[in-house]
């Protein structure tokens, strides 16, 4: 089984503050973190990998991002937590991408991860990790040495969809949304690009078996239990899983695993569909919203204040 987890580097949330006087954005340090929704998606993938490993089956978890070169550190952290390999798409040609161009770039990365060369790198990376972690506190735990590049090919051929060229992953996991952009578009757009079924806002992964995945997810009507055939795209809620911390052995192993950093040309991304050029939407104006500064303080005793509030409720139709 091959799982690709798409992650985005976002500013650590407290960082995005407005200076009330100058109306400019205050940045205390420029630390980036993995979008917490994506961190939860990675944890879901790693839990599947652990479960498969315990059953003696292979599972490759690839972490994928598009971002500035510094994002490499966040991907390496993903490997330290247990991912098999990582790919960073980093190129000025990707800059200014809206969600359409971002999902396109990620789709190129996903194809690249399924290519033979990336698969081999993952296999060797996985074995390195196994070597490095063999002295860890859980010597009896089966590791991911069985994660072979061919595993995802056999995974897809089970349901007769294996196409020539790079194999697609069995599962693409994304956070439901990014805390900075909040568009929640990337997951469904990836599903559209690969013509895969998609389940959004997943709260619980119930089972993966016989080429199908069963999940509970939030819909307008309530929490639904649904089943979709693999390969599929799932976007997860933040509270679906508590991300694990990297182990010391994992950190050491991750230091030896190369994070592939590839340009747009390397993943054969069409320049016309990448970055600003491939983005139909443009920000034409940004401005600070007007705030109500006409707040009236209700003075007087508590009973007087309460009476005023009730009068307001009556105005609002009580």
């Amino acid at each position: 089984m091959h799982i690709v987890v798409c992650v985005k580097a976002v500013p650590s949330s407290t960082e995005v503050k407005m200076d009330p006087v100058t109306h400019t954005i205050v940045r205390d340090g420029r630390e980036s973190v993995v979008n917490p929704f994506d961190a939860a998606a990675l944890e879901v993938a790693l839990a599947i990998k652990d479960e498969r490993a315990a059953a003696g089956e292979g599972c490759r978890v690839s972490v994928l991002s598009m971002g500035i070169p510094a994002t490499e550190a966040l991907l390496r952290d993903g490997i330290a937590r247990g991912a098999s390999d990582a790919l960073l798409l980093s190129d000025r040609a990707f800059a200014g991408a809206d969600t359409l161009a971002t999902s396109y770039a990620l789709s190129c990365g996903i194809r690249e991860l399924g290519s033979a060369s990336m698969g081999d790198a993952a296999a060797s990376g996985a074995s390195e990790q196994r070597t490095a972690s063999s002295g860890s506190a859980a010597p009896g735990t089966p590791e991911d040495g069985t994660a072979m590049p061919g595993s995802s090919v056999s995974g897809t051929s089970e349901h007769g969809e294996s196409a020539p060229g790079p194999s697609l992953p069995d599962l693409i996991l994304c956070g439901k949304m990014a805390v900075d952009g909040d568009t929640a578009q990337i997951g469904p757009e990836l599903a559209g690009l690969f013509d895969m079924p998609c389940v959004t806002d997943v709260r619980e992964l119930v089972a993966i078996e016989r080429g199908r995945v069963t999940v509970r997810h939030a819909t307008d009507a309530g929490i639904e239990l649904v089943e979709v055939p693999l390969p599929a795209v799932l976007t997860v809620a933040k509270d679906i899983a508590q991300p694990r911390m990297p182990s010391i052995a994992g950190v050491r192993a991750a230091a030896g695993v190369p994070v592939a950093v590839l340009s747009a040309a390397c993943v054969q991304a069409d320049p016309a569909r990448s970055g600003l050029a491939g983005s139909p939407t443009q920000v034409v104006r940004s401005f600070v919203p007007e705030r109500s500064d006409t707040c009236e303080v209700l003075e007087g005793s508590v009973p007087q204040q309460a009476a005023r509030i009730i009068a307001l409720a009556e105005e609002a139709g009580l």
Partner: protein
Amino acid sequence: MSGLMVDAARCVGCKRCERACAFGGIVVEGRLARPTDACTLCGGCVEACPVDAISIERDEAGEGPGRDLSAYRDIWVIAQVDAEGALLPVVFELVGKALELAEARGCQVVAVLGEAGRAPRQAERLAATGVAEVIHAVDERLAHADAEVFTQWICALAEERRPEAMLFGATAFGRELAPRVAVRLQTGLTADCTALDIDPKTGALLQTRPAFGGNLMATIECPAHRPQMATVRPGVFAAPECVTAGAGAGADLAAGIITQALLAPEVAPRVIVLDIEPVIGGSIAQAERLVVVGRGIGSKKNLPLMERLAELLHAELGCTRPLVEAGWLDYAHQVGQTGAAVAPKLLVSIGVSGAIQHLAGIGGAETVVAINEDAAAPIFGVADYAVVGDAVEVVTELIAQLEARN
């Protein structure tokens, strides 16, 4: 290649661009601005520059697929029904806004309704809202919210009829459906718009949405691609009375025509619904009056007091994210950027400090009364009326007066 250009002859090194940038994407060195790797080409610095030294160059070769924009016309509203088959209120809110835009543009509004026919006469209800036409399909494959099934149906229609703009409710389903349609039609999509405007001449849809949790608003255009697509959260626009009156009055008005459009036979749902736990209780997004509680109510034992107040005010109860995370109330009650956007006539905010992410969800409220001990709490920055005091004390008094009144 596209990129951020700084005119060295104009740049005075004032650093306003550096301060305006949310990403660390531009720095001033030696009195000259220079973009860094972190630049996302968002254009924030272009606005901030007082001497017009910064511009964004676009690679014209990659600009759009050379579509003939004049071939696209009309504004489509993509309708959605609930589990019982009834149109969601957001549909009427969107129709109201679309009618306003269409009048400015001199075009028509077309509603698109795919349903499984669980409730009678929904297409007629929609046709009575003032839209020129309802494109309608009744098909069992549309029973469940499998976005791919809807995508194939809507895209086939859009390719044939070429709408200039398409509006979707930013419901859980709309937020999945709209991106799938956008990627298939290879066009732009703006999520969670809080304001929509149209250029009467070009038909350009001006889509305004909050960025950075509402700290900044961004107006977004989709200049070279059609249809232009936007989602709008429930409750952001009010449904005009003429729209709701038509919808309730049983199609006596000059109703729009209803066109049946079949779903292609090969379209097959892949998402199989095994079970569903329906949402219990009213929807906070649609509430007329809302009591929203935050950590400032002290402890969980004060929650019944807040529930009693909500009951007496005939209000729904909402809360901030920390209360959901602490397990005091479930997610259906959460108001804010990651919860529901609400638009009540009256919002009584109790013990809510007013984190930016929370404020992003209450912008639609008509009147906000905030009760908080901390006079400096940011919630007072958006409130119309402030009570600086102990939440429990004020609420206890409110309950006493309301009970005495009944």
